[in-house]
């Protein structure tokens, strides 16, 4: 019986700039169903953190309840973590972020945790442009309670029990763009080539970065007729482009040609290079992003890649003008300016 992952790794495993190998970013052995898309997303997160040279203690992973929200146990075992109440991950992330803006906040949620019980929190955290990465592992069903349709199940999708879903799906990406999210992307758990650069770009983004990842539930929603099965998703993917994330320090070797290749300089100086596949779409234009989402829905396609990016907006700290230092580093002298200052304030009010 194997509930233990062997400690041996490939002897030639490369090290990142911090001297860590990929294994340093791993977590416990997954207890999700064999073949769950969530495990692939976990692996993509591990790879992204490794490649971004993130010091594990500089990252906090936050989650709610559900299969998706269990995953933080399975990646970044050396980072901070908070497994919160169902649908309340954004509140906890907001609190933590307000208290210490030096950490990277990685929120992991599911379609139930976000589009049903957590919908209220989700829309408000978008409004506030909280600097965090918000990943939804979206499988269109409640896998932990035997696969009932969730709010993201597509109209007409057939469940494992053979029942056709009568309700309209909530399109999380469309909603996020509508509400002014500043980084919106959609991807597929089975396409790490695309997912990893997107997660890395999200980590570099200064604001709320939302990635909706279609992640098939291999146990309850991988049947014929389901619109979230491996086969269906693979057959209906329509990428906005191919992506490559280039960190600031790295020399850029790609040559640009014929206007198809584009690069967006991100907040921290890194570049998101992409090869546009859809000529109508411009990720910096909210209307064209919205249009692309609607068109894809019309054509019964799953649009993937970066959908929309807005680097001009202020994040929550800038909006409410918080202090620069983490609260736990503030000393009494910082918090209490003393009698002199009080007297001068009082004097100003006389």
């Amino acid at each position, binding site marked *: 019986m*194997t509930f233990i992952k062997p400690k041996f790794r490939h002897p030639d495993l490369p090290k990142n700039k911090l001297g860590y190998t990929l294994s340093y970013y791993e977590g416990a*052995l997954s207890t999700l169903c064999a*073949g769950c898309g969530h495990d692939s997303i976990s692996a993509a997160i591990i790879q992204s953190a490794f490649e971004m040279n993130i010091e594990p203690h500089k990252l906090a992973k936050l989650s709610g309840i559900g299969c998706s929200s269990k995953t933080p146990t399975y990646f970044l075992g050396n980072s901070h973590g908070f497994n919160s109440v169902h649908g309340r991950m954004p509140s906890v992330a907001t609190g933590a972020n307000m208290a210490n803006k030096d950490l990277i906040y990685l929120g992991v949620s599911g379609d139930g945790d976000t589009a049903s019980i957590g919908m209220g929190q989700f829309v408000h955290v978008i409004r506030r442009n909280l600097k965090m990465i918000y990943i939804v592992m979206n499988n269109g069903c409640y896998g932990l309670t035997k696969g009932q349709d969730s709010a993201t199940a597509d109209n007409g999708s057939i469940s494992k029990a053979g029942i056709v879903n009568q309700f309209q799906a909530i399109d999380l990406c469309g909603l996020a763009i509508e509400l002014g999210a500043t980084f919106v992307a959609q991807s597929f758990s089975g396409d790490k080539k695309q997912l990893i650069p997107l997660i890395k770009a999200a980590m570099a983004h200064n604001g709320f970065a939302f990635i909706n990842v279609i992640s098939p539930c291999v146990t309850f929603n991988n049947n014929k007729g389901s619109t979230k099965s491996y086969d269906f998703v693979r057959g209906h993917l329509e990428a906005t482009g191919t992506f490559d994330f280039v960190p600031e320090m790295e020399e850029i070797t790609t040559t640009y040609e014929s206007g198809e290749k584009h690069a967006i300089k991100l907040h921290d100086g890194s570049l998101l290079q992409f090869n546009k596949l859809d000529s109508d779409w411009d990720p910096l234009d909210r209307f064209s992003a919205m249009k692309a989402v609607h068109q894809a829905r019309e054509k019964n396609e799953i649009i993937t890649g970066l959908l929309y990016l807005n680097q001009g907006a202020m994040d929550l700290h800038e909006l409410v003008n918080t202090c620069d230092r983490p609260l736990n580093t503030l000393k009494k002298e910082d918090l209490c300016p003393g009698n002199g200052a009080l007297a001068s304030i009082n004097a100003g009010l006389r």
Partner: protein
Amino acid sequence: MQPTDIKDPEYFHKVVDCQYACPAHTPVPEYIRLISQEKYTEAYMINWESNVFPGVLGRTCDRPCEPACRRGRIEEEPVAICRLKRVAADNKGEVKPFMPQGPFSFNGKKIALVGGGPASLTVARDLAPLGYEIHLFDEQFKGGGFMRSQIPSFRLPESVLDEEVNYILDLGIHTHFNHFVHSLEELLSQDYDAVFVGTGAPKGRDLPDLPGRNEGAKNIHIGINWLANVAFEHTTNIGKKVIVLGGGNTAMDCCRTSRRLGGESVKVVVRSPYSEMKASPWEKEDAMHEDIPIVDNHVPIEFVVKDGVLKGMNFEKVTPIIENGKRKLVPTGEPLVFIEADDVLIAIGQENSFPWIERNIGVTFDKWDMPEVDTLTHASSHPKVFFGGDAAWGPKNVITAVAHGHQAAISIDLACRNLPLTQRPSPFVNLVSQKMGLHEWAYESNVVNDVRYTVAQADKKVTLSNRKTEVELGFTKHEGCKEAERCLNCDVQTVFVEDKCIECDACVDICPTTCITFIDNAEEDELRQLLNMPALNTSQDLYVSAPLKTKRVMVKDEDVCLHCGLCAERCPTSAWDMHKFLYKVTKAG
């Protein structure tokens, strides 16, 4: 790349590195698993069937399996395969009931075996149960050949050798001991249907032209002859100061035996650098442990003899340099080094010698005066004469001699049945799923982190005072179990079925050693570079599937796969499964 054909038994055979490296292809993981389950008799019999001398080999084998062991590629030390074999031999129960039971009905064919070493004994064991009447000739008074005369008793107790030789002789072999065969022609003139030559490489190399060789002859000995004299108790002592020339395992046996016969200051002097010595690393260590310094880069120049008495030897110091890609030893120009010695043992190699084979009876010899022997069939140019062991292609080791014996036995059997010698039997192969439940396998899939256990040795004071006291104590049962658990079960194969795969990446994500990649197909060189971890060890194969739904292929680098079964456990569709692969070289008959 073309999809891998796993129906070819050699593909998975190669994945079982230890078995593949073993000349006799003993199913190593199979018997190691039995040792971990304390099934010593069964483990012994798997060995006996394949390598005939488990007790002997468990102490003295050259261990080609261990450098090949996968464990050595993922951590420092391979599994102690050789010493585990001894655990099986030491702790086995009654094994005779599991061996072929005579008397066997005579099939009308008579075979003569010349030489009583491992190759001949293997032929005897394979052919006797088939009804052949076997006649074994040896100049010694007991069977065993070089295993008896060359391997000192402190490494291989006589009782162990006797036991395993007798298992074979008890099959009804007609032995002709103390019988030196002087003429092959005469032997062939008798009514033998085939003659197997397993006479080893009996001639020790000398340094006949070195000044002082003749003057000091009384105290200058040829290593292998001297060892035989010690084994048969013709020689019982040696001078206090001894020089052993040579860097092979015979040199190690000579120096350690000298220490037990009165040698107090024994030195091994070797021409080449220490790292290039032919002796196995563990034998060098054992020699040094017995206070025997190894002096390298010293070329013998002359024996120093005064008044008819050997005083020592002069050596020239050299240093290795690389010239045109070849290693050369160049004198350093320092003055000659004199090393005192009462006796010198020359252990610089051994050669074949066939003075008893007439050159005009149809056995062709090449320009090096070696018989022309077919590498597959072991047949000579004479239809009735077969060669094996060191006699065939020069000195190797016991396990190679055993492997030769099996193949020669097949050829002799085919020849006696008037079948073409090239009609070799296919190996026995079995591939069976180990799945027992959701997280349950029929093998212990957990990979233990233990480092290699060391074998305890008896007190040096005791072993140096008695030539017959065995130095190594062997693993205890507990240590044997623990060491056996280090085995990675490379014979439990990862078998991939394309049409079940849904490309969910679960195997890729879980694999501890990053062996699996789903990728667009390419030529091998390119593919090796493009994998999630580049497959740079080209001696290990890539397992490539047929194209999948996305037109990609699954590529698995066999190099550092732990055979932990996690890919199969995380596979939702059983596209991966763990199958136990058993490969046995088919024997004669």
